[in-house]
């Protein structure tokens, strides 16, 4: 059996399919929508799952193409006349196709992994589960393709099957709305787009998806290996049972994956030496890049009375709403990994830290505006405010104006106003601190 499997691996459509899936997968990872997986391993695993949107239909087509081989070579009758069970002939083919698609999927993951291996450190077990479900989805697609390709040995079967598969994946979310969890059961790509830094796929969702995909693959095997209508009808049984099991296991709530937050990824990891600088665990690979600008920012802030002494990553999540604990002596810094895996906006990190000292607790109504924060920060740094990429030019113009008026004041007076702004921001009572001297 192993010898036949080896021959199948070399001589069937398996190596070609693996190569096509790998090349397409890697191109998608890096060029389809920019590099969206640079934050970490979980993001890579979820992005790979998203690109099953294309790989899944292609695996279907690959299976259907392979299943037409006997028909193409005109040996169907010859093989049917051999006194051997059909399973003996089908198992190596099934094995070869499964090995091919799994290898391609894993190699695609390796290609993405090489890109982030220097910066991504947090590797939760669920990454392997998400990847395994993706590989299982490809196996199910290839085997389903084999089964359908054997039943309909026509040239058009494979491309038509691929188009149908793609259409199915695209239509599932619309067809199941408003029951989003149904789409999550049946579509391996659903809710895998744009994973945030603390995203995860809950285990129950993966278990439900694995149950459905395994049932689909099992049904496809029965269909492919069948030699009579009884077995073909029986192939429906595992599919129906798997669907029922998956629907039962999947929690019946919408946005189940989108709203999932990995608390471990969000926990803070701190630098050993003083002053403390902490980032979330998922960004722990960026800690060494965050420390220098963070400490430089803290040194600049030290001029102020009651200056903050620590920098933490801003681990705020908006859906579901969650804020990091508020401390007066902590500056919250937003950290994001750029497409190359390294710290995005490393140039403005110092300014972000200094401006972060003028932020207010969450839910504060009377917080300092962006212009005021920038003016105060740049006064402390001693440079004219410059526009960041995301900033509104109006805010920058106003910040420059405020900054100039601060510069014209005597140093003590200006410092007193900036210190007053900091006090007011922390206590959530910002008024006209930068422009009037009354609040000393």
């Amino acid at each position: 059996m192993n010898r036949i499997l080896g021959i199948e691996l070399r001589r069937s459509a398996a190596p070609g399919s693996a190569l096509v899936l790998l090349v397409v997968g890697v191109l998608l990872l890096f060029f389809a929508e920019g590099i969206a997986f640079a934050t970490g391993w979980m993001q890579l695993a979820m992005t790979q799952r998203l690109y099953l949107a294309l790989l899944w239909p292609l695996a279907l087509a690959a299976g259907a193409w392979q299943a037409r081989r006997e028909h193409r070579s005109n040996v169907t009758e010859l093989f049917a006349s051999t006194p051997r069970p059909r399973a003996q002939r089908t198992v190596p083919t099934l094995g070869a196709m499964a090995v091919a698609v799994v290898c391609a999927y894993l190699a695609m993951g390796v290609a993405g992994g090489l890109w982030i291996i220097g910066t991504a450190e947090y590797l939760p077990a669920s990454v392997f589960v998400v990847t395994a479900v993706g590989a299982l989805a490809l196996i199910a697609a290839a085997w389903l393709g084999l089964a359908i390709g054997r039943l309909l040995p026509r040239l058009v079967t494979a491309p038509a099957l691929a188009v149908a598969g793609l259409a199915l994946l695209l239509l599932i979310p619309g067809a199941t709305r408003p029951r989003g969890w149904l789409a999550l059961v049946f579509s391996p790509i659903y809710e895998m787009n744009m994973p945030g830094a603390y995203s995860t796929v809950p285990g129950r969702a993966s278990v439900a998806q694995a149950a459905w995909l395994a049932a689909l693959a099992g049904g496809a095997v029965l269909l492919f290996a069948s030699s009579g209508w009884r077995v073909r009808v029986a192939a429906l049984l595992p599919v129906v049972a798997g669907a029922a099991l998956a629907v039962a296991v999947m929690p019946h709530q919408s946005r189940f994956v989108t709203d999932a937050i990995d608390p471990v990824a969000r926990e803070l990891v701190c630098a050993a030496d003083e002053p403390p600088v902490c980032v979330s665990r998922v960004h722990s690979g960026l800690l060494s890049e965050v420390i220098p600008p963070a400490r430089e920012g803290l040194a600049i802030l030290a001029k102020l009375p009651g200056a903050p002494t620590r920098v933490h990553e801003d681990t705020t999540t908006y859906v579901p709403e969650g804020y990091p604990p508020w401390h007066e002596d902590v500056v919250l810094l937003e950290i994001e990994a750029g497409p190359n895996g390294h710290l995005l906006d490393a140039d403005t990190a110092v300014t972000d830290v200094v401006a972060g000292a003028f932020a207010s607790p969450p839910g504060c109504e009377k917080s300092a505006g962006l212009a005021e924060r920038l003016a105060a920060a740049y006064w402390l740094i001693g440079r004219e405010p410059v526009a960041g990429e995301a900033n509104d030019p109006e805010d920058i113009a106003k910040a420059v104006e405020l900054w100039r008026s601060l510069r014209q004041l005597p140093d003590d007076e200006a410092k007193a106003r900036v210190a007053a702004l900091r006090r007011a921001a922390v206590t959530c009572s910002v008024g006209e601190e930068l422009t009037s001297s009354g609040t000393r």
Partner: protein
Amino acid sequence: MRWLTLYLRSRRAPMALVATGGCAALMWSLWSAFSDSRDVGVQMVVLTVLLLVAALTATLGGPDDALEGTAGIAWPPRRIAHLLVAFLVVVVLLLVTLATGARFGPAWLVVRDAGGLLGLTALSATTIGTARAWFLPLGWTLAATLFPRSEPVIGRILTWQAQPPESTAATVTAGLLALGGLTAYAMTGPARRAPAEAAQQ
């Protein structure tokens, strides 16, 4: 007339035409049943064109292409006519829907994609054989419909199938593919395979 009948039979044209019509009818009824909008979504239109072209792919080769090549017949005009008729079948089937409740348009997009994809299929058939001719059109079109890029120009060229009809880059790409496919197929015909393999397309 007798020649034409035999030719069409050897290319399994009736079967392919039935499949093409069936695919078009299926896509049309799917959209009519599941959408309130009269204009079919662009993704669906591109995928339908791809499906129809794929259904006609089998007619590009006969049971024994090597044997055909030995016949004392002027093949190039016949092959050109074959491709043009296939193109007309796809375009007419979809343009007829413009008068119905589910419109597969805009017309220029259908014409451009049908021409480009048919040309690409013909080009593949001359290089890697009819049986494998759908590989590249399928993979390329699925990728382009899922992830169309409008910037920069190279993005418009690489995802020409899904560009809006007014895109010049897409039109030029489709035109080149159509012309290249037409010329290559007319000159050389489908790639020769061993008869045993070619026999069952």
